[in-house]
């Protein structure tokens, strides 16, 4: 019951925000808000691998790039036709709302496939080696895309269909973006905070012991990696469709590091920590914009200070509202 009430309240909030925010905020703030949504999803999906399964992946932007480009290409080369046809028979806004989930799923699926292909060999490596392998993958993806002319190569790729100039493939609705983010976070939270999800944390804690109690550790790691890649791909697809333009520069290894920072600063093993860190750190450079060239210096100092004060991250492995994300009690408490 409490869950349904919360769900209803969330929906009302989303619809209200969707209707009101564009009237009261200028597009600059709206863009920041939608980028926060993308950052939150990227951070939470990486948390599944790095924080819960204990594998250190630092190529997450690569999977976002796959999701962004595949969904953008699908929209431009396939979706535009469908959307034009759909808009003929349905009201335009309904047609767009019905269409919007498709490129997200396509982007997510493509990224999940990439995650499977990378994960199977890479997850045999541990620690530093896995980090370097995933970093390498992220760069390979970026440079490969840079050389594909079909998606604009170095010019970047605009979500405009040459054959259907009347169709708008962008989707900037904050309500829709945050609904996707919330749904994805809920899926990951339920996956992690259940008896089955204990397998992820058991692998993080001790692989030998996990195997000895019947957990197929390699499969668990690949599963975490594939699910994580799927949601990174969805985040990339959200990014592509809300911005209306993608460029490989958005998916450089700096972006990957940024997501790792969200996860570590938020606290390894904490979904709410990752959400908080992603939101604050995406907003921070904008808030600090008034400082001119000192901006990034202060941003870096803030990061260093945060890690000195709380090396375990803002929330450590805990959640902000244990009952909400976990769904049930049963996590460890302070020593008895």
């Amino acid at each position, binding site marked *: 019951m409490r869950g349904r009430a919360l769900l209803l309240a969330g929906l009302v909030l989303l619809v209200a925000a969707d209707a009101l925010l564009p009237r009261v905020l200028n597009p600059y703030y709206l863009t920041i808000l939608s980028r926060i949504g993308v950052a939150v999803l990227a951070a939470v999906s990486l948390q599944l691998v790095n924080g819960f399964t204990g594998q250190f992946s630092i190529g997450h932007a690569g999977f976002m790039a796959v999701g962004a480009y595949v969904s953008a290409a699908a929209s431009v080369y396939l979706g535009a036709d469908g959307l034009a046809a759909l808009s003929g028979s349905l009201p335009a806004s309904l047609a767009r709302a019905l269409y919007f989930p498709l490129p997200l799923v396509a982007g997510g699926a493509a990224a999940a496939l990439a995650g499977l292909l990378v994960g199977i060999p890479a997850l045999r490596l541990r620690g530093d080696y896995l980090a370097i392998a995933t970093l390498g993958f992220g760069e390979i993806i970026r440079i490969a895309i840079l050389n594909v002319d079909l998606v604009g190569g170095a010019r970047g790729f605009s979500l405009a269909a040459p054959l259907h100039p009347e169709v708008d493939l962008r989707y900037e609705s904050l309500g829709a973006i945050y609904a996707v983010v919330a749904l994805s976070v809920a899926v990951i939270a*339920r996956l992690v905070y259940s008896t*089955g999800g204990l*397998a992820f*944390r058991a692998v993080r804690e*001790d692989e030998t012991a996990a*195997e000895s109690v019947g957990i197929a550790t390699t499969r668990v790691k690949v599963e975490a990696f594939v699910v994580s890649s799927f949601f990174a791909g969805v985040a990339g697809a959200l990014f592509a469709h809300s911005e209306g333009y993608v460029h490989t520069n958005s998916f450089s290894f700096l972006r990957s590091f940024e997501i790792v920072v969200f996860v570590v600063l938020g606290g390894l093993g904490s979904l709410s920590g990752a959400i908080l860190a992603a939101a604050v750190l995406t907003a921070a450079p904008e808030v600090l914009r008034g400082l001119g060239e000192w901006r990034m210096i202060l941003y870096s100092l803030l990061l260093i200070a945060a890690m000195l004060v709380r090396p375990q991250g803002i929330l450590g492995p805990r959640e902000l509202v244990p009952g909400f994300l976990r769904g049930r009690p049963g996590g*460890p*408490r302070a*020593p008895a």
Partner: protein
Amino acid sequence: MPLLEVEGLTVRFGGLTAVSKLDFAVERGALVALIGPNGAGKTTAFNVITGVYAPSDGSLRFDGREIGGERPHRICAAGVARTFQNIRLFRSLSVLENVRAALVGDRRSGLGDVLRGPAWRRRERDRDERARDLLAKLGLERFAEARADSLPYGEQRRLEIARALASGPRLLLLDEPAAGMNPSEKDALCGLVGRLRDEFDLSIVLIDHDVAFVMDLCERVTVLDHGEKIAEGPPEAVRRDPKVIEAYLGTDDEEEP
């Protein structure tokens, strides 16, 4: 047919032969010990039986099926569970979560966990009850919500046994369960191991250095030294075996060349 049959088991690490042509069998319902001085190959034997290492040679049959070289989680699913000499708990998880993780093993359903229908909730409740039940049987129920690594040492050893039992084994391998315990704790452990065997219908193999502890508890003893079996039989006979005495105490001419 014995539950576990080890035949000609050999494990080599490069030039070192850790276990050499070991033969032994564990009958159903038996409580047997594997003893020997440090470095005799006892833990290596456990590691091979549970799939941590693949045997270099020889065969391992569990319930008539060859399991040598299979992955540890498959061997666990077949019905072999173990504890570790240097306790390996899921340290930052709660005591209850340690047991629940083992209850599920590889029978997971990601989709079920996401959708959480009535059947899922029922199963989740069952698992919770079974986990608490196991904790109660090992006297750990009051620690259920505590972090595993916050438990006192003896309780951590019992939690490892609870976790091993949660995977539903028919054969339980205990690697030095009495290590670091004082005599009264050892007595309590003796009682516990016997009780668990009867209650869970188990066969148990345990490793120890402490000859007296093993003698009180086990029906049969296998003695290893330098990777080879040097004696086997009922505790009393093994204790008097000159080879065993030599392995543990050395001989005179070894000390005076």
